[in-house]
């Protein structure tokens, strides 16, 4: 039995379904991210775990206890909000100690725990400051300490970094991960930033329009997306439509040009149209690589210089792909309008299980 179980949870607001049959088992100590665009239901799910929203149906079980109908203040769950939500009338130390204070813990114990927490987030000197005297990054670390001070069973983080500057975002991200590992606390992390999700998580739940699109490790999610949505939301995948010519041997056609996938196609039969995904970094131009590679002929439509890489848009008749190549001073960039042959290995052809709708 998993530590945190979310079974068939559904949430209906007036007319719309915010979350549709959500199922997830989280192991003790696991770090799971909910990733998706705004309005995909990730925050609603998190708020149901916290107890701020009541599921329309389904059960939420933490450590064997059904908490579905318990109020938030009896769940022993920690939460960090996007807007920090520090109590402005209290010092940093009082903020961190608040959960213990309302639990009527002895003052000495609170003091000791607060010091411990301040040390954990490396802000020991700031115990007597007020929130308005601190930077956003500091405030969010305090909020994290406050959530952890009550030794919660589960830690919930609702887009904790999105109000911060890019630089602090990265450093705080690493700190969150380090603290999570150190304490071994079961964590749910809500974000719309794929980079955050990929770098932090043990597993990622990709969501769209209230539904789970895919659950997997960052490696799986990035390299083997199951749906066009995951493919396009995580990384910058090229999604092309292709016609299956021989499913058994993985043969397809893209605008009349034949390519071959490494594995047989199971999700479609001959003559059907499927979506395939290609990572930009795996495609090369004019590659005279092994004879096994796929080749496609097109025209250079655009060349954009992105610093460490150069991104080239190659146009076929109706579709186009982006390919990335590392920048180096000796590179001779192709001219716009020039014909080009792009190559990619068979393993790179990802056939997506659901066809892209109206692509």
């Amino acid at each position, binding site marked *: 039995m998993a530590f945190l179980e979310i079974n068939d949870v559904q949430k209906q607001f007036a007319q719309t379904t915010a979350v549709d049959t959500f199922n997830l088992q989280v192991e003790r100590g696991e770090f799971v991210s909910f990733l998706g665009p705004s309005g995909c239901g990730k925050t609603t799910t998190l708020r149901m775990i*916290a*107890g*701020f929203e009541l599921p329309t149906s389904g059960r939420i079980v933490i450590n064997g206890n059904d908490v579905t109908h318990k*109020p*938030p*203040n*009896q*769940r*022993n*769950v*920690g*939460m960090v*909000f996007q*807007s920090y*939500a*520090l*109590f*402005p*009338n*209290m010092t940093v130390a009082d903020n961190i100690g*608040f*959960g213990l*204070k*309302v*639990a009527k813990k002895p003052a000495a114990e609170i003091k000791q725990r607060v010091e411990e927490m301040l040390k954990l987030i490396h802000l020991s000197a700031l115990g007597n400051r007020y929130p*308005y005297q601190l930077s956003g990054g500091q405030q969010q670390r305090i*909020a994290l300490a*406050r*959530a952890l001070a*009550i030794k919660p069973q589960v830690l919930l983080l609702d887009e904790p970094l999105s109000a911060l500057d890019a630089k602090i975002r990265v450093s705080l991200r690493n700190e969150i991960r380090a603290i999570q590992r150190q304490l071994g606390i079961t964590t749910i992390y809500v974000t719309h930033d794929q980079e955050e999700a990929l770098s932090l998580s043990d597993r990622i739940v990709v969501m769209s329009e209230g539904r789970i699109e895919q659950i997997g490790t960052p490696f799986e999610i990035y390299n083997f997306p199951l749906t066009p949505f995951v493919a396009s939301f995580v990384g910058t995948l090229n999604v092309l439509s292709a016609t299956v010519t021989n499913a058994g041997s993985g043969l397809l056609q893209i605008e009349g040009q034949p390519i071959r996938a490494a594995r047989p196609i199971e999700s479609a039969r001959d003559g059907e149209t499927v979506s395939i995904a290609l990572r930009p970094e795996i495609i090369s131009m004019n590659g005279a690589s092994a004879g096994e590679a796929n080749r496609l002929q097109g025209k250079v439509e655009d060349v954009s210089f992105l610093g460490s890489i150069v991104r080239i848009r190659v146009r076929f008749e109706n579709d186009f792909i982006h390919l990335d190549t590392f920048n180096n001073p000796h590179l001779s960039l192709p001219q716009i309008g020039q014909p080009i042959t792009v190559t990619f290995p068979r393993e790179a052809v990802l056939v997506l299980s659901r066809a892209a709708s109206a692509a």
Partner: protein
Amino acid sequence: MAQLATVEKFTAPVTPPATRQFSLAWLGVVPFFAFAIAFMLFPAGSLLVGSFQNAEGAFTLENIAGLFDESIRNSYWLSIQISLVTAVGGGIFGFLLAYAVTLGGLPKFIRSGLMTFSGVASNFAGVPLAFAFIATLGRVGLVTALLKQLFGFNIYDHGFNLYNFWGLSVTYMYFQFPLMVLIITPALDGLRREWREASEILGANSWQYWRYIALPILLPSLLGTMILLFGNAFGAFATAFALTGGQLQLITLKIGAQIRGDVLHNPGLGYALALGMVVIMAISLIGYSWLQRKSEKWLR
């Protein structure tokens, strides 16, 4: 001399064109400052000077000492009492109304209705307000008559009188609590949902949330607004005059009588009375702005 030298050194780098532009820019605000000096600072200055002058124009502290005469002390005290009662009473009632429309989960139209009424009622004061309360709670007022008819209860036999302390307080409340509603509603809006949620998830119940978080956060605004209400009642003249006809010995009514004719038999004492009011109002305004700044810092 040393001071002058530093000032000179400090201003020395200013180049001629900049100086010219500077003086031109000043021209735009001259009318305003002239007005402020003529009709605000100059009269205020004359109050100050007059308070320390006797009838012959010589310096004296007698006027200030006169403020501590029993009748004048009583007048100040009466004004302060009525201001305190209506500020606290109106403040609490206004707060409860604002709470009801912001966090009480009432339909939206009730909030906009309350805000409109508060805007009107907080501006409905003076002579017509006195008339309205005479028609309501006067000896033949509607409510007085209804209570007599329905319950055989004559409030005038039980110590109530519209023309004394409590009657005036009830009347003042009509503009006091709407003012509280207008000022405190935005502060209640400023209570962020996340604070409540954060306290809940940390294990606090509703009472603990209000005790440790919401009330402390609102306290500066609450106190500050009550101070404003205090000043609002303290300086009120027209309502009290129209209602009690100058019988109640409020400090404003006393100053009014002093303007009409030298009822205190000491023109200088009138200045001191006015100065005393300004001092009390200034203290309350300073208190208000101090509390306001504190709460702004928190609610940012």
